[in-house]
């Protein structure tokens, strides 16, 4: 990679050094910065200002004009408007993308306030304040030049320097009405603040100058911002959303914490991309102070040994219209990247996706004034096919193998050499971070949830935009618009533009944003009385709300939730009548639903929604209900399935009808199966007890039941029926039952096994009997011969339980000599005796016959019951 950015990289660094500097300025200024100032000054001397313009938007250029340095000089001594001037100055400077005054600022700042990295809150405050000033630029006239009309508004000073962001309320908004000064033309307003009457230059002159600058700036803007090639003339036809998209970091509406986390992550790539070492500097400055803040800690120190940020990918998630894409683009641009956008409109099949990945991250623009490294922004990533996301994941970790045939050999080698993964930041944007396809991505990515803007702030921005558009609006209306839209910036602007087209004063209804609400919210909606600011809503409105919820879908789950939760939230005991009435609605719902489902009479469907209204009025309380998910139903279904399985197995074994099992046999089973047996050894059982045991075994066998050893949670062992028919028949707390002791059950298990074996044997012999009967007439001589075997004369060969038959080995044939050549006298008489004793009943004749017969059994070492038989082809023919 190093060869890819040789000189231009450094140059780039230098070019953008000032930007970083400013960022650092914002983050926290300390004296240590002096280190870099040399660089900055070098830059400022070396670089023409034209470079900066591209980054610095309109207002900066104006302040580039003559008056700024002088103003600096003026402001400090004058301190007419107390502290704020410095901050003001600083705020301006930030946007100025620092010219020559940095030293100045750095010098004076520590005196003012020493902001440190660990005071993140303050930094955020500061930025927020800066942002406010930014906004203030648009309404400068208040103090200096005008507004005699609104004395009341004057009384509320907007210039209080320690303004809190939260304090920006609707009432302060109403002061900002630019409508009164509209005649002054929206453009001039912009830069008139610096002209605070202290200037030597006359206002009109300044104005003319500024206008000129404005025009220039607009021209430059349209040249510089590569992605939006707008001709000023086309402004009228442009969507406001695009027109007033933030162009500076300071203009971002999204929450500052989010912005910063994101930007910090982006900055971590400096090491890889720009070969600059942000780590050391940062750690030097910030590490000790960062200890307390967990998240930022990981983010800053989060570079692995190769210099990659530890979450190598970032995932911005949040509902639509909050400015995620804007944030990504702006921050990437701010950090000095060329943004490449891949969104849902581009083809995202695996192949195209791969191509896009490679082209975005490994190529570099060589054309253009100053080629920047790329930064890939994957918009709407939750809609991408999972295969593509797989590829993305592999790619990030450098595990993706490129198609070998498509690449020349040299490149392949290179690929192998540095399989470190993606070397450019990749930003993913999605609406739902919990989409199933993003599961793997979510685990490795730095997930930044972008949450909504406050309605007040959004309304402020809207107001500003309206003003710039030359319209006026009621601030409270704007706030309610913001609230209605769920703080969806895009939706608000769209609505405003639409309404702007219409004449003001017309009544326009805007649909509330159609959001997917969580199921718990829906239940809460139904089970809680909604409240306005004044009090409980009126009935009509409530009905509308409930119906709205009910139309949302998932009716079945809603019903289950209501059914599950209502008894918990009813605390008034006397209302059984209402409960009964509400439960009638459950019945109605069930009947309706069933009718719809079975007969497809969908026109009945809407009526079931009114049940929710009935339930709402019956159950809803003022308090916030504690809701739980209706899991009971699933449990019930599981238990039911289990019971059914038990019944089915038993039925298969015994052939007894299911209902008979449930009603009669299962409840009485424990009584039938617990004779009074003492827990002693089987041999000590009395005659009656043995009879009981036999009966018990037979019953169990008949029903196909068995006893199985189970381990209790306490570690003991118990015997349970298998299948557990007892469970079907017993209910808790009904009556006490006797049960067999563990010892008796052990005996029982043994007996069952024995009985089962015996049963099989009986069956086997029965089958063989019938076989013999059938085969007797066919070949009598053979059966005759085989049936000579002593134990079961009638059983054919293959069913005879095998007896060890020792064929007489003639001792003469094997003469063993010992080492000295003497005959070894065998000590076999005892052996022979014992074998003879075993086979007493087998006559030598039989033995001979057997040894000559076709079937033989050879005893080898160990145990084997292999039986072999000679089969000749002619037998088969």
């Amino acid at each position, binding site marked *: 990679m190093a060869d890819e950015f040789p000189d231009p990289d450094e140059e780039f660094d230098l070019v953008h050094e000032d930007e970083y500097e400013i960022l650092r300025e914002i983050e926290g200024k300390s004296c240590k910065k002096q280190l870099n100032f040399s660089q900055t000054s070098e830059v400022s001397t070396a670089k023409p200002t034209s470079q900066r313009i591209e980054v610095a938007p309109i207002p900066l250029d104006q302040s580039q004009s003559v008056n700024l340095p002088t103003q600096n000089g003026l402001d400090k001594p004058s301190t007419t408007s107390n502290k704020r001037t410095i901050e003001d100055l600083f705020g301006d400077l930030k946007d100025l993308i620092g010219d020559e005054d940095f030293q100045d600022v750095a010098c004076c700042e520590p005196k003012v306030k020493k902001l440190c990295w660990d005071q993140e809150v303050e930094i955020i405050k500061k930025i927020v304040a800066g942002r406010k000033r930014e906004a203030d630029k648009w309404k400068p006239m208040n103090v200096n030049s005008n507004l005699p009309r609104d004395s009341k508004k004057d009384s509320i000073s907007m210039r209080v320097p320690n303004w809190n962001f939260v304090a920006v309320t609707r009432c302060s908004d109403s002061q900002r009405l630019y409508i009164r000064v509209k005649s002054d033309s929206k453009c001039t307003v912009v830069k008139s603040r610096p002209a605070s009457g202290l200037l030597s230059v006359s206002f009109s002159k300044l104005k003319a100058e500024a206008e000129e600058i404005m025009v220039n700036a607009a021209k430059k803007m349209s040249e510089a911002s590569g992605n939006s090639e707008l001709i000023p003339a086309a402004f009228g036809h442009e969507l406001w959303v695009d027109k007033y998209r933030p162009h500076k970091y300071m203009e971002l509406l999204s929450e500052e914490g989010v912005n910063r986390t994101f930007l910090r992550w982006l900055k971590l790539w400096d090491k890889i991309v720009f070969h600059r070492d942000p780590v050391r500097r940062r750690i030097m400055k910030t590490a000790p102070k960062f200890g307390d803040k967990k998240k930022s800690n990981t983010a800053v120190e989060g570079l692995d040994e190769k210099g990659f940020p530890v979450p190598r990918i970032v995932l911005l998630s949040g509902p639509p219209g909050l400015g995620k894409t804007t944030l990504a683009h702006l921050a990437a641009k701010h950090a000095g990247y060329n943004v490449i956008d891949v969104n849902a409109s581009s083809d995202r099949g695996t192949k195209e996706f791969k191509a896009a990945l490679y082209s975005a991250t490994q190529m570099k623009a060589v054309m253009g004034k100053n080629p920047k490294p790329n930064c890939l922004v994957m918009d709407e990533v939750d809609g991408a096919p999972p295969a593509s996301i797989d590829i993305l994941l592999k790619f990030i970790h450098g595990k993706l193998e490129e198609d070998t045939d498509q690449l020349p050999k040299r490149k392949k080698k290179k690929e192998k050499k540095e399989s470190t993964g993606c070397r450019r930041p990749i930003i993913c944007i999605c609406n739902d971070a919990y989409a199933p396809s993003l599961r793997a991505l979510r685990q490795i990515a730095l997930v930044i949830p972008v949450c909504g803007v406050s309605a007040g702030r959004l309304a402020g921005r809207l107001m500003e935009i309206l003003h710039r558009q030359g319209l006026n609006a009621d601030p409270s209306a704007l706030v309610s618009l913001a609230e209605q839209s769920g703080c969806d910036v895009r939706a608000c602007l769209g609505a405003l533009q639409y309404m702007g087209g219409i004449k003001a004063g017309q009544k326009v209804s805007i649909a509330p944003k159609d959001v997917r609400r969580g199921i718990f919210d829906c239940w809460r909606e139904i089970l809680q009385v909604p409240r306005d600011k004044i009090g409980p809503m009126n009935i009509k409105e409530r009905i509308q709300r409930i119906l709205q919820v009910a139309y949302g879908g998932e009716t079945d789950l809603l019903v289950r939730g209501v059914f599950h939760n209502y*008894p918990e939230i009813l605390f008034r005991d006397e209302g059984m009548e209402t409960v009964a009435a509400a*439960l009638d609605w459950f019945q109605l719902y069930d009947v309706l639903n069933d009718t719809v*489902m079975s007969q497809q009479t969908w026109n009945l469907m809407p009526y079931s929604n009114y049940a929710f209204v009935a339930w709402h009025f019956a159950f809803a309380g003022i308090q916030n209900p504690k809701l739980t998910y209706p899991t009971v139903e699933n449990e019930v279904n599981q238990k*039911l399935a289990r019971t059914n399985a038990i019944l089915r197995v038993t039925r298969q074994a015994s052939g007894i009808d*299911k209902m008979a099992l449930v009603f009669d046999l299962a409840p009485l089973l424990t009584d039938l199966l617990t004779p009074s047996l003492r827990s002693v050894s089987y041999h000590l059982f009395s005659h009656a007890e043995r009879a009981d045991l036999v009966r018990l075994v037979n019953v169990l066998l008949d029903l196909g039941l068995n006893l199985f050893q189970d381990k209790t949670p306490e570690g003991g062992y118990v015997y349970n029926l298998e299948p557990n028919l007892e469970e079907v028949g017993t209910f*808790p707390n009904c009556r006490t039952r006797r049960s067999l002791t563990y010892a008796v059950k052990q005996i029982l298990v043994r007996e069952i096994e024995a009985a089962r074996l015996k049963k099989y044997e009986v069956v086997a012999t029965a089958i063989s009997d019938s076989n013999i009967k059938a085969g007797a007439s066919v070949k009598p001589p053979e059966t005759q011969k085989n049936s000579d075997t002593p134990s079961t004369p009638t059983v054919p060969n293959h069913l005879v339980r095998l007896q060890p038959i020792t064929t007489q080995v003639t001792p003469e044939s094997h003469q063993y000599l010992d080492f000295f050549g003497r005959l070894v006298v065998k000590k076999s008489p005892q052996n022979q005796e014992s074998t003879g004793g075993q086979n007493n009943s087998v006559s030598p004749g039989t033995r001979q016959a057997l040894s000559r017969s076709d079937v033989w059994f050879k005893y080898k070492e160990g145990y084997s019951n292999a039986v072999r038989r000679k089969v000749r082809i002619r037998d088969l023919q």
Partner: protein
Amino acid sequence: MSLWVDKYRPTNLGKLDYHIEQATRLVNMVQEGDFPHLLVYGPPGAGKRTRIMGIIKELYGSGAEKLRMESMNFETPSRKKLEIMTISSNYHIEVNPSDVGMYDRVVVMDLIKTVAQTHQLDATGQREFKIVLLTNVDQLTKDAQHALRRTMEKYMATCRIILCANSTSRVLPAIRSRCLGIRIPAPKINEITTILESICKREGLTVPHELAIRIAEASERNLRRAILMLEACKVQQYPFTVNQNIAELDWKVYIQNTAKLIIAEQSPKKLLEVRGRLYDLLTHCIPCDLIFKGLLQELVKNCDLELKTQIATTAAEYEHRMHHGSKAIFHLEAFVARFMAIYKKFMETSLEAFM
């Protein structure tokens, strides 16, 4: 065959202990030669299956006693595989189509077709038809019953269908009219008592008459239950005593206890507790109409006459709705809540009147 219920089950129609007149008629009908479809109905434990097996044996002789259990596989039009257990001999096949729930129509159609399309090879000395025995017909879906009625006529030559149900109320009239209905009433108390005593005699035991009567009463004239109870009594304590404890059925006790809970307190909290118990009953495969019945029987004990009629009406109405719906718990709970409301109101008004 070691449970007394199986051991002392009469194997042919001649050995039956009660409804003897009916049995002789059945024998006559079988010997007559021609044999219609039958619909055998009656309360559980009255001896329906015993009689059906008797009929089959009467028809085919002892060959019909060799039973085997097989599972048959069917496939629904939506390619869902169904497996159902059948009990069959060479001459008949018994199946409970409601085992497969809503797919019973497929089973009914396919099964009867496969059975009916095979003819008996040597008709000499044999009947030329086979028997298909469908149990629990009252739980069949409407679809299945409609499917049944056509096949019943179509394959009359090769198969006879015996339907076995608890009540005819849920059997389509079309099917009822195609069958010869045979009602098997529950045995009377004294009939059960004599049967119990004869079993004890054959087992070599002595049972006090009073105990036999108590068992018969506790069994609610369900012979199967009575014999099982007798055996349970024997296992628990042999030399029988008159006042011996007779094992009660758990599910009945549970329903009774639930009813007591309802009577004791009427509040949403109690309702939640009752719901848990209702769920318990349902998971133990107790049919919901039985729960309704059990609850009603227990609840009305505590009411006076006016209230009784009101509650009985409510119960009937709610149970009717339940059969039109699919979630029994809604209807059961609605009934309980309604009862609570009525009962509470009644108690309050009567208290006011008292004061």
